[in-house]
């Protein structure tokens, strides 16, 4: 039984990372895309405050570019932590989606604290006694876990309610939306019950993680605890397979697309990438593209299907 439970958890972690990495690699393997930025672009330094860009300068390609990582953080932190865009543009939804997401962040922090506690435990330090740091880890673990469970459950119930009752949202809601939210309610519900009935100081949880780290497959003798572990394992493995993978893909949607304003000036690596895509074969069928004996993007894009004699002659002279 112990072997089965630990194996499932190991497998879930592997599946999680496999799909996360697969999505990221798949995105990174896509060819170069055209620029499609959207302002305000957060790293534009002082200009970001009003949505400006380096293109506001005459001879912009000769000027040093101010690219502010701090500016990106100033946008990303409120966006990630507090869902600023939903707050600004969809306030009724924010009241339920914010607790859901913030609860998840607390749960992630809770698992991280459990991990720290587990390592400490393996090092012979008992969490919650002795040093101030150890006590802080214990206190935060005890705070973040239950608070996270409650916020996730409350938020998920609220989201289900919104998706069922808001006519605009209802028609865009699939069975998967309800399943996902239901899964979080059940998983966090089992975690809450385990905390309330079996593991009030998360000693079992910390020990379980220590066992995972040390490959010590010792059974925790609590059916409720083990049920919670199995549900959590399934949820962890399941998330990156769904649209919820936006939690990490958002990085690319923002940094590579929305803020992807890197100009192609003095960038031989960009030219090399453009050279690759211009040699891709084109198979679009419309008559203004196909049927002229041109096969690559470079050939198709430099071919004028309606060139008049003079233009053709000019081209030949060049």
């Amino acid at each position: 039984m112990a072997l089965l439970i630990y194996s499932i958890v190991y497998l879930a972690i592997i599946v999680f990372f496999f799909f996360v990495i697969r999505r990221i690699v798949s995105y990174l393997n896509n060819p170069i895309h055209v620029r499609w930025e959207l302002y305000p672009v957060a790293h534009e330094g002082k200009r970001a405050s009003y949505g400006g860009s380096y293109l506001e300068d005459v001879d912009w390609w000769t000027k040093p570019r101010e690219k502010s990582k701090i500016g990106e953080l100033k946008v990303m932190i409120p966006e990630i932590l507090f869902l600023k865009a939903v707050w600004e543009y969809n306030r009724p939804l924010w009241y339920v989606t914010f607790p859901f997401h913030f609860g998840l962040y607390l749960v992630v922090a809770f698992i991280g604290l459990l991990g720290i506690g587990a390592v400490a435990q393996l090092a012979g330090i008992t969490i919650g006694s002795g040093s101030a740091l150890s006590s802080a880890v214990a206190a935060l673990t005890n705070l973040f876990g239950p608070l996270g469970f409650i916020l996730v459950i409350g938020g998920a119930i609220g989201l289900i309610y919104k998706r069922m009752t808001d006519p605009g949202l209802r028609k865009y809601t699939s069975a998967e939306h309800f399943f996902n939210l239901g899964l979080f309610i059940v998983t966090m519900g089992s975690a809450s019950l385990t905390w309330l009935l079996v593991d009030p100081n998360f000693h079992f949880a910390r020990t379980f993680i220590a066992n995972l780290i040390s490959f010590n497959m010792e059974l925790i003798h609590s059916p409720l605890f083990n049920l919670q572990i199995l549900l959590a394992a399934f949820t962890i493995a399941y998330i990156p397979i769904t649209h919820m993978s936006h939690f990490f893909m958002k990085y690319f949607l923002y940094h590579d697309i929305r803020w992807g304003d890197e100009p192609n000036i003095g960038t031989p690596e960009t030219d090399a990438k453009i050279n690759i895509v211009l040699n891709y074969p084109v198979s679009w069928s419309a008559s203004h593209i196909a049927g002229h004996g041109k096969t690559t993007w470079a050939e198709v894009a430099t071919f004028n299907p309606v060139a008049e004699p003079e233009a053709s002659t000019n081209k030949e002279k060049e």
Partner: protein
Amino acid sequence: MNKDLQINDVSKNTEKLATVKNEDLMPLPADFEEKAWADIPEETKGKYVCILDDVNILQIPIPKTVEEEEELVNKFINGMRKLFTKENNWTFLSMLETTMEHCAKCNTCSDSCHLYEATGGNEMYRPNYRTEIFRRIYKKYVKKEPFSRWRNGDIDLNWRTVARLGEMAYRCNICRRCAQTCPIGADNALVAREIRKIFSQELGITVPELHDKGSMMQLKTGSSTQMNKIVVRDNVEFIDEDFSEEFGYDFKTPWDVEGADILLIHNAGEIMAWPENIAAFSMIFQAAGISWTLSSDLAAYDSINYGVFYDDVQFARTAILQAQAAKKLGVKKIVLGECGHAHKALTVIADRVLPEGLKTPRESCFPLLRDIVMSGKIKFDPERNNFPVTLHDPCNVTRLMGIIKPQREIMHKLCPQFREMHPNGPHNYCCGGGSGYAIMSRNNIPEWRFKVTGRKKLEQILNAFSDSRGPEIPKYVCAPCSNCKGQLRDLFERYQLLEKEKLTYSGVVELIVNAMVDVKPGFIKWGEE
């Protein structure tokens, strides 16, 4: 009917999917009478599929047999498959895939859409409605995702679904205001453009104003206006003479000057519709002592690039011709005149299309104009512009390029009564002519541009002049983009805003020249005065 519209209604055998009723329209801060929709002409109805709503834009031939219906569906699916290959769609694959995979369907984008707001929340105009249909087709028939029906919702794919989706791709200005509000970064406006691409690049079904009379005409004659190099030079020469004489300022527009610092590319529509814009640029550049030229090479005297609206291949062909002209002249840079989509097309999108050797730097005219105005090289009398002025931000220049301040610095220096409309800058609203509609006057399309797409802009303009309403005070909307001006021209005419509000529109350069001390007063006119 419109609010209850379901995703799967798109596939049903009904006469129309949706309609926009006058009583549902967003109220305006003035009392304008709205008429009932004019019928789509029988000739159009007899040839093209008109089953979406009250308007027809995309000309999809009516399938006459079951085989033709199936052919339409199969070709569309083939096109969609190609759209998700790197070879055929390296340009936008990353953006499209991420939008397909990561949208949470939270509808946070809905209220940002001026069409959705103008129609009183008509479901068909919700930014995600079109995307959701597209996504369900993709997941079920192209990606063939396991449990797709359960995961994404089902869709019945038939010729009506395809035809309506194609037409629906032309119910969006592609202003990308929706994308700006998305917490995740999904882009519903892009999906509209990608659907347009399938129809154009795979099915060969296009909008005549954009394709046959647009990008193809530009590739054939050099300009969508049909002006060839001889005609365009004659017309500009006439503009030079006419404006020199009228305003007592002798100037000459240079053509094909090898080694000039700047190749200026105008939207050639200005030459036909707003010659004062062409004259103003020439007067300012001459007064500032700038080394510049126009080019008479194919497509290089017309900055338009309608491929941006519907077709990547046509986009690339036009951009390359314009870049080749710059290379041939040996200029130091290309400067784009007052045309928003041309700005975006050649400066930004073409940045990763133009190969090495064709990368002459490109920039907007607005920073250059700002520097000229601030340089002290030209004497100005701002009192000549002492009337209420507001600034319309072309989406392509502001939201999509981040050029916000230069034009404002000019306004603040030369226009004593300048006031912003709200919201503005990168958060502006589209004029309603964006993504090609400004040049469409076929059938009842203008009605749709007035009632639906231009409604929010009209509200913004009227609100910007709330302290100076009425025909006694002349007012000016600075709209530095040809497409936007075309939309405002038609909008103002429809609602008689010149007569009722003494409201006119034009660009930035007209305000600059109007304030030039060396030019006779009265460059800006209200009507036929």
